[in-house]
């Protein structure tokens, strides 16, 4: 693989992989090899080259073509908090920030030796571990508590706010369209951002106590993402879209399938019908946990590309492939516990899943969530080399 291919993968090839038209090949894209902020530092201590500390260096080292998530348009998670220099990330860096424009000001409320309590761009108050500032914090307060707080909050969720868009949109669009890199439009889901606004417990109560409020929040998400999608699809070539949901835990969905059907399906369908009318049929969805009861509902809605298929939660990609054939595309699905454990465990896991899945449809193998720092560098390199071996590619250079 040449360095040019590393930087500029062919977007048609990406779509062919997604549509199950390159059976037997193992697609390797950076999108499915995301990692915790702590991971490169841990790997450098284990002897990895220090260049992997940056995203570009990481991709170059592992020879992973880049799929571009359209973070320049704020429609899913607001990346206003992402600093260009990953070594200089300040407070709030990895708090999920729902797509609010303008963001809320950051403020440190109090701190002690171990923890810091601060506000986030999304309007939450969180407690952060000073020893592990990049890990998910404990959420103490949420901005949406009732109709009054919601009516204020929703003012920040207008698709037409100019600051939501790159300043010179025509120039941005022209530049993006000239690139041959798969481009993924990021979209808020109908559950994930609501739990960031309300907190999970309050949201779960609201489904029973005030379903109208839940529906109003979901309608605002629909208004936001459809407004964004109309302009983006008109001016940009988009290869896939990604919903962020996080609506399951290790035993199953956080709400019942009947609630998903009542609250979410009609709204999903509006979005996916619009996308399909515009030629976009690769609909990716990010949800942790056991999604086996959710996949059939998503498939009905045209959402055909779930990630990350956490193994410890009991997900079974092979079973779903038997059910849906090449109509379903998978991402992730390699047990992080095997990546931690040993090279033998990695080989066993990869050989059980990758060959049968790439022979029968689209599958982008990767860790079953972002790569944690307890995966040893040598194990991950072995994993990538094993995937390359299955592809008939040379090993990564030492």
């Amino acid at each position, binding site marked *: 693989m040449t360095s040019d291919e590393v930087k500029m993968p062919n977007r048609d090839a990406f779509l062919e992989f997604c549509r199950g038209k390159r059976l037997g090949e193992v697609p390797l894209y950076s999108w499915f090899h995301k990692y915790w902020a702590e991971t490169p530092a841990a790997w450098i201590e284990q002897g990895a080259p220090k260049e992997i500390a940056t995203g570009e260096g990481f991709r170059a080292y592992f020879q992973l073509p880049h799929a571009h998530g359209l973070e320049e348009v704020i429609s899913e998670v607001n990346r206003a908090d992402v600093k260009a220099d990953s070594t200089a990330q300040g407070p709030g860096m990895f708090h999920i920030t729902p797509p609010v424009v303008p963001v809320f000001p950051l403020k440190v409320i109090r701190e002690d030796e171990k*923890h810091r309590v601060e506000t986030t761009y999304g309007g939450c108050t969180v407690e952060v*571990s000073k020893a592990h500032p990049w890990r998910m914090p404990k959420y103490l307060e949420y901005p949406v508590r009732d109709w009054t707080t919601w009516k204020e909050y929703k003012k920040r969720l207008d698709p037409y706010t100019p600051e939501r868009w790159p300043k010179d949109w025509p120039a941005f669009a022209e530049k993006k369209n000239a690139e041959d890199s798969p481009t993924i439009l990021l979209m808020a889901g109908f559950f994930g951002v609501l739990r960031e606004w309300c907190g999970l417990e309050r949201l779960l109560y609201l489904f029973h106590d005030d379903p109208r409020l839940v529906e109003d929040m979901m309608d605002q998400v629909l208004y936001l993402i459809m407004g964004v999608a109309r302009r983006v699809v008109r001016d940009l070539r988009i290869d896939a879209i990604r919903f962020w949901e996080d609506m399951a*835990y*290790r035993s199953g969905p956080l709400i*019942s399938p009947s609630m998903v059907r009542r609250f979410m399906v009609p709204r999903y369908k509006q979005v996916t019908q619009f996308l399909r009318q515009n030629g976009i049929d690769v609909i990716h969805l990010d949800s942790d946990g056991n999604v086996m009861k959710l996949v059939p509902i998503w498939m009905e809605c045209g959402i055909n590309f779930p990630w990350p298929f956490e193994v*410890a939660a009991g997900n079974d990609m092979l079973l779903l492939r038997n059910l849906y054939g090449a109509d379903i595309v998978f991402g992730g699905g390699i047990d992080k516990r095997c990546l931690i454990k040993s090279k033998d465990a990695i080989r066993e896991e990869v050989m059980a899943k990758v060959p049968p899945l790439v022979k029968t449809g689209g599958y982008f193998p990767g860790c079953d969530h972002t790569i944690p720092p307890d995966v040893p560098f040598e194990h991950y390199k072995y994993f990538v080399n094993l995937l390359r071996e299955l592809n008939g590619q040379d090993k990564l250079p030492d």
Partner: protein
Amino acid sequence: MQDELRTVAQAVTEGDDTKVVALVSEALEEGTPASVVLQDGLVPGLQTLGERFKDGTVFLPEVLIACRAMNAGVDVLKPHFSLGDRPSKGIVVLGTVEGDMHDIGKNLVKLMLESSGFDVEDLGTDVPSEDFVAAARDTRADVVAMSALLTITMSSMSDTVRSLEDAGLRDSVKVLIGGAPVTREFADEIGADGFAEDCVSAVDEAARLMQNRGGAND
């Protein structure tokens, strides 16, 4: 009386807290002892809900509203209990292990344990092993329950098991663990006594552990 208590149970299962409060008050006015309303009305309601959760016919929102209804009923009963009337099913020290700030699963476990009659000492998140040990000693806990969401923090669970051993508490306290990457095999590996995959099974597992150590704190 049995019909009335069945109605109380049904209202708990359905998560109708307003109805639970009315029915429990009515039962008390009619002279039903508080302990009977609790054991034959409220508790079976929550147990039924737990069974439905395990069957996959109800989900977390229904668990939450059922616990809320249960707790509303218990609040009505409380002034009618004399000291010692309401048996505790056991004392559980609960927390998310050191290095881990996740608390959603832990909070749901706490809610279910308390609603089911356990006394819970919640240590919060990012809890070092010495704090689990100190709380277990101070509260004379029956169970130490630990949660971890990250593979990298699972080792804190085995640290705590060792610390409990070093403190000479391991024979008097059972260890229960859970969390996204945690499995029964891992529980066996580190010498934990129980493993729960969700908030409902945490109650079952805690009850099983109490039986193994010789019953509730009646």
